[in-house]
């Protein structure tokens, strides 16, 4: 809400309308329509290709069951309706990264439609559709040194890798909501094992569609932006080449500024595609966009209609787990975590599951809220600092409980944790050893105190002569001798008692 107000204050003449298209490569072992292996990252070029993904004449596509399961799984996670028939279509355009001259995609009947999710800030985002398609090849552009002729090098390893496209309705009103939505999609993809969704590796790509409309001249109805009266809607600008989640936000902010200026100057805005330049933090004109007619969509005759039964959807839905935003809300509501901690911990399934196991274990010995707070603090502090979640739950719980019972200090506990990780030692054994040593020391505390008095005759004289401050020095000496294991107050009492004699 706050974000929205800030935005309207900045641009009080126009409203920002954003829809997002997110492509996600789904995590299958083989390609969408052939059995070539998918893992092409850093592989030799053109080694994961066959007649199907090279578009050789006569080759026929054979759909991958797992890929469609993952598409449906994403649809279920985003509360979509799942179609009971799957229809593929051909989308035609000519480009060297598309060897068949068409991409197999879905046009009028996407597998998933009409969904929604809530972002961490509580904004609802409506989903128009999720459809299944295939990725294109990777091309790099070059210039021949001798002739100045332009050419491209093509690696078809990526051609035909399973790709889903998630399309929102034009319901996003701020750059931050767009970023939050992309973040949520990435989290969900990872939670459910749908994709690693690494934007730098191109496993996830975001394309915002942006327009500015005059205030009170439009309405959002049935998932569409409609003009009010004789107002003519401003055309959309699509941004491509966004390589990170932050660039989603930044590129939209940039476009708001650019479009505001154009509109203020009375310029006519053309529907166009612009590319994000991450070095200059600007968008650059690429081309005017082709319309759906230009793609000459037609039903894919080589793939039969695939019948999806309720039982199929039911079986796939068994892979669903509690999703990040639901988890976050539960941590705040039931476990009393701060909004920040709840968001960080729930952001990956691994950390959320680790947290919950640690909490369950601590709950056996601590109050519920206290167990949750300790689990959260230890996870977000020392455990995250280690950089992995390999520390055993039971070991860590015993360490935390030893600290909670005052058997070791927090510093000592963290030191033990780090040391056992670094030196690959058994944390519980180390902990036992430290506690045993400490108890030995404490049992001999009287003796240690007497020893310190014997060794520091000067300080003892000063104290007896009325210099109270010297007591602090003597306490320090005892603490040092016990390696910090003793309770300083107790040491003080013994010292006073011993020094009276």
């Amino acid at each position, binding site marked *: 809400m706050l974000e929205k107000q800030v935005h309207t204050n900045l641009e009080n003449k126009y409203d920002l309308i954003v829809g997002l298209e997110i492509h996600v490569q789904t995590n299958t072992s083989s390609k969408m329509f052939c059995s070539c292996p998918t893992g092409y990252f850093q592989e030799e070029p053109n080694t994961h290709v066959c007649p199907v993904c090279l578009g050789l004449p006569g080759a026929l596509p054979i759909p991958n069951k797992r890929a469609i399961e993952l598409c449906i799984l994403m649809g279920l996670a985003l509360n979509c309706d799942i179609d009971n028939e799957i229809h593929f279509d051909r989308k035609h355009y000519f480009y060297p990264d598309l060897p068949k001259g068409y991409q197999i995609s879905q046009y009028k009947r996407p597998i998933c439609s009409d969904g929604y999710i809530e972002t961490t800030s509580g904004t609802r985002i409506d989903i128009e559709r999720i459809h299944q398609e295939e990725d294109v090849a990777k091309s790099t552009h070059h210039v021949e040194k001798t002739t100045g002729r332009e050419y491209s*090098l093509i690696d078809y390893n990526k051609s035909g890798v399973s790709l889903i496209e998630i399309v929102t309705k034009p319901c996003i009103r701020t750059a931050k909501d767009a970023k939050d939505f992309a973040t949520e999609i990435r989290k969900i993809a990872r939670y459910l094992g749908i994709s690693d969704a690494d934007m730098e590796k191109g496993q996830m790509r975001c394309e915002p569609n942006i327009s500015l409309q005059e205030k009170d001249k439009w309405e959002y109805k049935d998932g569409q932006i409609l003009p009010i009266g004789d107002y003519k809607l401003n055309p959309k600008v699509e941004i491509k080449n966004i390589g990170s989640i932050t660039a989603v936000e930044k590129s939209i902010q940039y476009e708001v500024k650019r479009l505001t200026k154009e509109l203020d100057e009375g310029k006519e805005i053309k529907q166009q595609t612009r590319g994000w330049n991450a070095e200059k933090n600007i968008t650059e004109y690429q081309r005017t966009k082709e319309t759906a007619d230009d793609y000459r969509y037609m039903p894919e005759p080589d793939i039969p209609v695939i019948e999806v039964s309720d039982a199929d959807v039911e079986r796939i839905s068994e892979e669903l787990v509690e999703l990040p935003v639901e988890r976050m809300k539960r941590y705040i509501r039931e476990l009393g975590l701060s909004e920040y901690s709840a968001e960080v911990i729930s952001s990956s399934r691994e950390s959320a599951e680790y947290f919950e196991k640690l909490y369950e274990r601590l709950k056996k010995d601590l109050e519920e809220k206290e167990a949750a707070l300790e689990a959260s603090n230890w996870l977000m502090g020392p455990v995250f600092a280690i950089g992995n979640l390999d520390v055993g739950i039971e070991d860590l719980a015993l360490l935390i409980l030893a600290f909670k019972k005052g058997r070791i200090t927090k510093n000592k506990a963290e030191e033990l944790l780090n040391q056992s990780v670094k030196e690959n030692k058994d944390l519980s054994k180390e902990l036992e050893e430290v506690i045993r040593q400490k108890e030995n020391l404490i049992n001999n505390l009287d003796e240690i105190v007497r020893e310190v008095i014997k060794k520091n005759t000067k300080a003892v004289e000063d104290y007896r002569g009325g210099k109270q401050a010297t007591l602090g020095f003597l306490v320090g000496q005892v603490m040092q001798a016990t390696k910090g294991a003793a309770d300083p107050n107790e040491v003080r009492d013994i010292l006073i008692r011993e020094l009276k004699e």
Partner: protein
Amino acid sequence: MKIDTKHIAKLSRLSLTKKEEETFTPQMETILESASVLQEVDTSKIQPMKTRIPFKELREDIPERSLKQEEVIRNAPHSENGYIRVYGEIFGGIEES
């Protein structure tokens, strides 16, 4: 039936001379007109002729061996370090997926 030959040629990455455009436009219009007879058939109650397959019979996600790089490159007129090399007017103005 009107046809925008120039636009269609552009979508197919063909460059036509003015004369070719003038020759092809009426030809294509005639083709479309003959085919348009089909538009008159009422298909509103007819299901598209499509074979059907139950979901569970789809291909399992098991990778198999691909072609060797030499085999892939063999058909390409130009290549470079295992990449296929292409030239031409095919770039620009066109949407990538």
